[in-house]
C-alpha cells in the first residue's frame, strides 16, 4: 500500500520530504502516516468519490485507513520480511522518454530560507522556428521539495519578458493580465507533486507557434534554508496536425466581493451547451478563502449528473482532473457550478487577519472562482459555434468583472484600457473610446491606450486620428510591433509607400516571428516590384505558419509575376486546400493555369 500510494513521491529526489521505502522508514513515522491518511491530507487528492470518475486517483480507501490504524495500534509490527514485495522500479529522469524539446529557466532562482510562500513567474523563450504540434509535456521542477504547484501559460505579447527584465533577479512577482497570456488552445499545462505526465491522443495535439514565450508560474514553499531552483519543461511533438481540438469553458464569477467576517459567501453560474460535447477534464480554482466546490450538469431530460465535488478546497493542492470515461453531454444540457467562501478568522488560511473586504483578482490575497471544463465538440463546425456562443457569455462576464474592478480601483488605467479593449472586441467602439480616454487621463503617455484609440479611430473611419495615435504610441514604446503594422497599413492606404515600408520593416524587426508582419512587408515590397524580396517575406511567413492561406496566394502571385507558373499553381492549390472558399485564389489559379497552357 505504501509503495503504491506514497513511495512515488516519498523517495530521494522527489517531492516528498522524507523517504517511505523501507519498513523502518514507515515504522518510525507510523503515527504520522496514520494521522495524515485519516485526515486525508495524504495522499493529496481533493475530489470526493462518487462525484466524477477520474484517472490517476490518489486516494486510499476507508479499509486501507482502518488497516493502518490497526497496524499502528498493534505496535507497527514488521511481519515476515520475506513477504515484502519488491520495491517498484521507477523510471529515472524523463518519464515519457527524451523530450523533443526541453525548455529550461535560463538561470536558477534563489528562494529565501523563510517567510511567506513565494509566488513567482518566469518568462522563458520557446526556441521553435516553425509551428509544432504538442502531444504532451513533462515538468521537472528541478528542486521538487520547494515547488507546491506550477502552472504554465503562453505569451505572444512579449509583456512577460518585459516584466521579467524590469524586476531584479530571475522572474517577476507582478501579475500578468489575462489579455497578455493564454492557455494553449483547448489545453492546460500544470504540475502538482505526484502528477504523472501523459501523452494525449496524437490527433488532439495543440499548436505551438514560433515567437511564443512560456510563462511559468510557481508557488514555492520556503524550507528553512536557502534553496535554488531551475525547472525544465519537456515537450513531446507529433507530426500529425490535430484533427480534434478541445475547447475550454469557464463557469464562475469575476465580480467576487466578500465582506470581512463573511463565513458563507456563495457564487453560482450556469451555461446552456449549444452543441454536444464530451467533458475530458475539469479544473477548479479559488484561492485561500474557497471552501466547498460543486460542478454538475442537468441533462435535457432533467437528470442531474455530478461532475465534481470538493468538500474542503485546498489551494495548495490545486490540480486538473481527467475523467476516466468522459461524460457525454448533449446540446441543451445546463452545466452549473457553486463555490462557497469563508472570509472569517475561523478560516486559518485567510491571508488577512483581521479579515478585510476581498474582491476578485489574480493575487493570492484576492479571490477567484472558476470552474474550467475541457470539452470536446463533435467537429470543427460545432467547435466554432461553441466558441462564438461561449465567447459572448465570457465577454459579458469579463466586462462585468472590469466594471466592478473599476468601482474599486477607479484610478487603475490598465483596467480602463482592458475594459475598452473588451468593448472594442464586441464591436462597440462608441463604448470603448471613453475608457481609453480615461486611461490616458490617468496616465497620459500610456502607449497601449494610444494604440487602442488608433484601432478605434480607424473603425470609425478617422484615419488621420488613427495615424496620430499610432505615432504617439510608438514615441513611448518604439518597439510596439502592432502599432508599426497598423500605422504602415494606414500610410500605405493613403499612398505613402516609403513610410509604410519603413514601418512594416520595423514591425518585422520588433516581432520577427509574426507571420502576418512578414506577409504585409511582402505585399509592399511586391507592389514596388521587388519580387525577390517579396517572395522571401512570403516564404518566411509560411515557415512560421504553413497553413497561412493568404501568404500562399501572395507568394503564388509573386511567383507568377516572376514567370514561375508551376510553383505558383502549387501554392494557389495549397491556399485553396486550406481555405476552399478563397475566391481570389480560385480566380488566380484559373488565370495561372490558362497562362501555363498558352506557354510554348
Amino acid at each position, binding site marked *: 500500500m505504501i509503495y503504491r500510494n506514497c513511495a512515488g513521491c516519498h523517495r530521494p529526489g522527489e517531492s516528498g520530504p522524507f523517504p517511505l521505502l523501507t519498513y523502518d522508514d514507515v515504522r518510525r513515522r507510523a503515527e504520522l502516516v496514520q494521522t495524515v491518511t485519516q485526515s486525508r491530507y495524504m495522499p493529496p487528492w481533493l475530489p470526493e468519490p462518487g462525484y466524477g470518475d477520474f484517472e490517476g486517483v490518489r486516494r486510499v480507501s476507508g479499509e486501507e485507513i482502518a488497516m493502518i490504524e490497526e497496524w499502528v495500534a498493534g505496535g507497527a509490527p514488521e511481519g515476515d520480511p520475506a513477504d515484502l514485495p519488491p520495491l517498484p522500479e521507477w523510471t529515472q529522469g524523463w518519464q515519457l522518454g527524451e523530450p523533443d524539446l526541453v525548455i529550461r529557466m535560463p538561470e536558477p532562482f534563489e528562494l529565501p530560507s523563510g517567510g511567506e510562500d513565494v509566488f513567482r513567474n518566469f518568462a522563458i523563450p520557446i526556441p521553435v522556428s516553425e509551428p509544432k504540434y504538442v502531444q504532451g509535456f513533462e515538468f521537472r521542477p528541478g528542486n521538487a521539495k520547494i515547488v507546491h504547484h506550477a502552472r504554465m501559460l503562453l505569451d505572444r505579447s512579449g509583456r512577460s519578458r518585459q516584466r521579467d527584465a524590469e524586476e531584479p533577479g530571475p522572474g517577476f512577482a507582478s501579475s500578468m493580465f489575462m489579455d497578455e497570456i493564454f492557455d494553449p488552445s483547448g489545453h492546460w499545462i500544470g504540475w502538482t507533486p505526484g502528477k504523472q505526465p501523459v501523452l494525449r491522443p496524437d490527433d488532439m495535439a495543440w499548436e505551438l507557434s514560433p515567437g511564443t514565450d512560456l510563462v511559468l508560474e510557481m508557488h514555492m514553499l*520556503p524550507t528553512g534554508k536557502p534553496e535554488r531552483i531551475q525547472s525544465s519543461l519537456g515537450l513531446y511533438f507529433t507530426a500529425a496536425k490535430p484533427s480534434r481540438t478541445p475547447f475550454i469553458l469557464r463557469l464562475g464569477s469575476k465580480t467576487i466581493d466578500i465582506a470581512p467576517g463573511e463565513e458563507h459567501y456563495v457564487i453560482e453560474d450556469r451555461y446552456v451547451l449549444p452543441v454536444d460535447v464530451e467533458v475530458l477534464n475539469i479544473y477548479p480554482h479559488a484561492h485561500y478563502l474557497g471552501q466547498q466546490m460543486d460542478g454538475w450538469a442537468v441533462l435535457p431530460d432533467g437528470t442531474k449528473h455530478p461532475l465534481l465535488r470538493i468538500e474542503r478546497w485546498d489551494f495548495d493542492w490545486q490540480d486538473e482532473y481527467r475523467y476516466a470515461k468522459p461524460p457525454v453531454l448533449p446540446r441543451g444540457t445546463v452545466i452549473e457550478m457553486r463555490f462557497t467562501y469563508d472570509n472569517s478568522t475561523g478560516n486559518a*488560511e485567510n491571508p488577512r487577519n483581521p479579515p478585510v473586504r476581498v474582491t476578485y483578482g489574480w493575487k493570492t490575497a484576492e479571490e477567484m472562482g472558476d470552474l474550467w471544463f475541457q470539452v470536446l465538440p463533435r467537429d470543427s463546425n460545432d467547435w466554432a459555434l461553441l466558441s462564438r456562443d461561449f465567447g459572448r457569455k465570457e465577454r459579458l462576464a469579463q466586462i462585468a468583472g472590469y466594471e466592478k474592478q473599476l468601482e474599486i480601483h477607479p484610478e487603475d488605467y490598465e483596467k480602463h484600457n482592458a475594459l475598452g479593449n473588451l468593448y472594442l472586441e464586441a464591436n462597440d467602439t462608441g463604448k470603448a473610446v471613453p475608457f481609453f480616454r480615461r486611461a490616458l487621463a490617468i496616465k497620459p503617455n500610456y502607449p497601449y491606450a494610444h494604440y487602442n484609440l488608433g484601432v478605434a479611430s480607424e473603425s470609425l473611419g478617422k484615419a488621420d486620428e488613427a495615424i496620430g495615435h499610432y505615432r504617439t504610441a510608438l514615441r513611448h514604446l518604439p518597439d510596439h510591433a502592432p502599432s508599426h503594422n497598423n500605422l504602415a497599413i494606414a500610410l500605405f492606404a493613403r499612398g505613402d509607400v516609403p513610410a509604410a515600408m519603413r514601418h512594416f520593416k520595423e514591425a518585422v524587426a520588433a516581432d520577427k516571428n509574426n507571420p502576418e508582419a512578414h506577409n504585409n512587408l511582402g505585399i509592399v515590397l511586391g507592389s514596388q516590384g521587388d519580387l525577390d524580396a517579396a517572395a522571401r517575406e512570403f516564404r518566411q511567413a509560411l515557415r512560421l505558419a504553413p497553413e497561412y492561406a493568404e501568404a500562399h496566394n501572395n507568394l503564388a502571385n509573386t511567383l507568377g509575376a516572376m514567370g514561375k507558373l508551376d510553383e505558383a499553381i502549387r501554392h494557389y492549390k495549397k491556399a485553396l486546400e486550406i481555405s476552399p472558399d478563397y475566391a481570389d485564389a480560385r480566380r488566380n489559379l484559373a488565370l495561372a493555369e490558362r497562362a501555363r497552357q498558352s506557354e510554348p
Partner: protein
Amino acid sequence: MPISGLCKACKEPTLALHIVLPVLAILLMSLSCGGSDPEVVLLDLDGRSVAPLEEMDAPASVFIFSSVDCPVSNRYAPEVKRLKAEFADQGARFWLVYPNPAETPDAIRQHLKDFGYDFDALRDPEHRLVDLTRASVTPEAAVFTSDNLLAYRGRIDDRQVDFGKVRPRPTKHDLEEALQLVLAGESFTPRFTTAVGCYISDMKR
C-alpha cells in the same frame, strides 16, 4: 515573584494549571511530582553525556525539538534563529534537541550546516527530555527557568494549524511570549500548548 520549590522532573503537568491561582498551581505541581527526580542525561554529537538541566545557570533555557527531515520543523529554522538572536543577549540559552533515535550525529551535523544553525545540539534517543517535558512532535519548544522549572512546552507559534493548513503569518507567538515572561522573572503559571508537526518516533508512552 520568582517561583521556587518545584521539582524539575514533573511528569504530569496538568493542563488545568493555568486557570488556577499561581500559588495553588505551584502547590499542585509540587504534589503531582511525587518526589521522583531522574537525572536527565542527553548526548552531544560526540556521544558524550550531557545533563543540561544540571548545568543550567541561565535565566531561561530553551530546548527546541528538531528533526533532520521534518518539513514542518525545518520551515521554522529562520524563526528559531530569530528568537535565539533576540533572546540570547538577555541570557536565554538555546539548545536543539534531536529526539528521533535513527538520526545519526553525522546527519545532525549536516542538518546544522544546511540550515545555518549556530546552536548546541543534543541527541535524546532515550527520550529523557521528551518524557520529562511530554513533547510529542518536532518542532516543539520547552522552556525552563533558572530553577529548572518547566515554564512552557508547546508550539513555537500558531502558524501551523494542522497538516497542510498553514497561516500566512502567525497570530500568536507562544514561545516568544513565554520567554518574555520568564526573563522578566514575573509571576506566572506554566503554559502548555499543542504543537503541530512530525511525531517524535519510537515514543514509549
